[in-house]
């Protein structure tokens, strides 16, 4: 079950037309001007 704060962040970023990448170290590994990362450690 995805935590509510992460679901909300996905919705906010997706509405801006940004791709969202979710991974424990997403911010370290994925870059781009229309890329939003969520470091989700599980």
């Amino acid at each position: 079950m995805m935590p509510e704060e992460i679901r909300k962040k996905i919705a906010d970023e997706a509405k801006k037309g940004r791709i969202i990448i979710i991974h424990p170290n997403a911010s370290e590994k994925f870059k781009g001007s229309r890329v939003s990362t969520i470091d989700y450690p599980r």
Partner: protein
Amino acid sequence: MVFGWMQSFVAPFVTAYKGMFWHDTIEMIIPPSDVPIDISYIPDPKYKSLIIGLTFGTPREFDISTGAIGPEVYSTDVGIFHSTEGYMDWHWDPCVESILKTNPYPQLLWASKDRPYELRVINKTGKFIWMEITFWAIKFPRKIPCPIYGECDPEDLFHKYMSGITEFFLAVDNVGVEGLIKMR
């Protein structure tokens, strides 16, 4: 998962130079967009990584208001161009069965912070799409000790190693089996 084509010649290099097998599995939420979205993937900024394969998961519809993942989407309106400079030319992988069911999707290329793995994502379905991808990799320190060449960039050493294999077999072809027997 089988990488049979790799085991014969790549595995000795990995074993000798203490390559570390690992993978990154990511979830992506892809918005509908009239223009591509570019992503640079750096497997591990502290290492050089030999990417040996990709596994594409099946894309599905995604409801951003609830976070619910919906029905599968097989369509040429969603997919990924990808490239890595010097190793893999830009090409289009639509989310269709012939791509998504080729797993693992074989690769043999080096990526690092100096040469990221590039992705260009397309989604013209008009829907938000959820998709997962696994990148299979072997990572090496940026410098590794070699008894012949000293401290080496693992990518450079790998090219020497693979060239050596090719040259060995060409030499065998050149002298023939009888020539090899005479060398004993």
